């Protein structure tokens, strides 16, 4: 039984994303702990990639800052090991296929299991290519999270019926980043998903305000927020954790209403 399930047991889940090492791992640690204290249910830890093709400008810049700061996959595993001493919150990695492939799938996924990473999210690994890592994920009990996009249509059943952990529902076309309005008919996508699986669905891409989070979580089991948090951290690392904590608290309250 995956630890990820726990994140959805106490009602709607709030899932914040953070890029590890932006601008340094100390700040990341302080922010993650602030997220935990303020009611986050699952943490998405980004391992930076040089060319993140699914990201908008905000997370692209965070990736660049983190890599310039010298963070590496090895350092991030050390960081997670350290973080696990203080929290047992469900955590997943979000990165790109080459980061896992280059480290060695076996070594990467084994270390996920050993350090306490419950799942991995790879936006450039669609259903057709999941065999690249799935057998190793199963071997070590790490969930490989699948995406459903507004364009998935007839693919929803195929993806949902084999999904594990939770399903990441992409709210809109395009890349990550805050949007003033989300116009996709999410309700009918979630409805189609529910016909094939009972694993939780969380919605991400474009969510930044408590109102949006409440609306999206209303359609599903949770809301994922990335760019809005990265912006808060980038305002200055000194009191980044305080700003992130306060924000997570507001968002969690909104979706729990």
């Amino acid at each position, binding site marked *: 039984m995956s630890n990820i399930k726990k994140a959805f047991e106490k009602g709607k889940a709030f899932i914040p994303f953070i890029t590890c090492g932006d601008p340094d791992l100390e700040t990341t640690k302080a922010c993650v702990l602030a997220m935990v204290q303020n009611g986050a249910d699952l943490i998405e830890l980004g391992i930076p*990639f*040089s*060319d993140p*093709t*699914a990201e*908008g*400008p905000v997370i*692209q810049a965070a990736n*660049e800052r983190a*890599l310039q700061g010298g963070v*590496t*996959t*090895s350092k991030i595993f050390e960081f997670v090991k350290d973080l696990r001493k203080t929290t047992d919150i469900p955590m997943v990695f979000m990165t*790109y*296929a*080459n*980061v*896992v*492939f*280059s*480290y060695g799938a076996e070594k990467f996924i084994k270390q996920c299991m050993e350090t306490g990473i419950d799942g991995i999210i790879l*936006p*450039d*690994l*669609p*259903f*057709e*290519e999941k065999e*690249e890592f799935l057998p190793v994920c199963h071997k070590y009990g790490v969930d490989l999270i*699948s*995406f*459903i*996009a*507004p*364009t*998935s*249509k*007839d*693919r929803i059943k195929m*993806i949902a019926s084999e999904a594990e952990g939770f399903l990441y529902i*992409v709210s809109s*076309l*395009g*890349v990550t980043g805050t949007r003033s309005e989300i116009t996709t008919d999410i309700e009918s996508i979630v409805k189609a998903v529910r016909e094939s699986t009972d694993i939780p669905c969380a919605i991400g891409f474009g969510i930044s305000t408590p109102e949006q989070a409440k609306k999206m979580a209303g359609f599903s089991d949770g809301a994922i927020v990335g760019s809005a948090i990265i912006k808060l951290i980038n305002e200055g690392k000194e009191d980044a954790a305080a700003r992130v904590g306060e924000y997570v608290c507001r968002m969690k309250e909104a979706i729990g209403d």
Partner: protein
Amino acid sequence: MSDKKGRFGIHGGQYIPETLMNAVIELEEAYNRFKDDPDFIKELSDLFNDYAGRPSRLYFAERMTQDLGGAKIYLKREDLNHTGAHKINNVLGQALLAKKMGKRRLIAETGAGQHGVATATAAALMGLECVVFMGEEDTKRQALNVYRMRLLGAEVIPVTSGTGTLKDAVSEAMREWTRRIEDTHYCLGSVMGPHPFPTIVRDFQAVISKEIKSQILEKEGKLPDAVIACVGGGSNAIGSFYNFIEDKSVRLIGCEAAGRGVDTLETAATIATGREGIFHGMKSYFCQDEFGQIAPVYSISAGLDYPGIGPEHAYLHDTGRAEYVPVTDEEAVEAFEYLAKTEGIIPAIESAHAVAYATKIAPDMDKDRIIVITLSGRGDKDCAAIARYRGEENIYE
């Protein structure tokens, strides 16, 4: 060759966001429907011949042959195509396909600007909207091509992310495609990216080797001993190789951009310095660090300045069917000047990489041997940059 869908040995695949999956599936279905359709073939063949000026000439470079004193050198003149490069072959095919699919808008990445110009040209011809992504660095290196694209009615968007070169232009075009799929076709410029692009682009470029084969048989009565082409993503090279793959006596040689040398960090020679990875939708060889971060590659040639290579080339390398060799900036510039002075032909700096390698091996080959060099493009666009490389002021811009 592909035992699994879209694979060349272990290379290839479809490593792209879920948002794009139905788009590439739709493209594959459309391509399979039209590629053997007699009307589509006729229409494309008319465009190739009447609009692009095909077949391109196979020219015997007599002075170069005499000067090098070895193998006979033939030049496949893709530089004489409309828009000045081989890129038009692929673009006419994809634009026609896009139009049949009901798309109204083309987006493209470009490095040197040749693919961008070709896409803008096809879009103008077929009444499609066109947006081209070009690294900011490249818009400076290739300012003339930026103007040509705008003149042809395309919007050119300078890309500032990452290193501001070809790889970033590809990333940005992919991002744009996820934003707007319904009416937009991504006209990818090389034999790279997710399946079915490497196959589609190869098929449209294969006209190069088809023509070389019949032209050389007519002129010499036998096959060439070597076919040499430059390789970035590798579209002119795969086009030049494809119809010779089964002819084992023909050496297939791809020339990679070594930049300042394969032992420096300023190189773009993927086979020489890269390793297996997953990027831009495909599994292939990439220049990258130990943690899989894609390397900021360098070459004097904007068109070869890419950290990866198409998956079919990766496979031809694995099986040993084709050879891939590095050629430095300096060697390419010397070949650029050499061909201008010897044959009165100014090649694209990309193509000059292939010319450079031919000048190395031709003298050691017997006089009855034949080398075909694909001149993938013309060099007018490069004159200012080469003058600058030689220390002349920017008087030509």
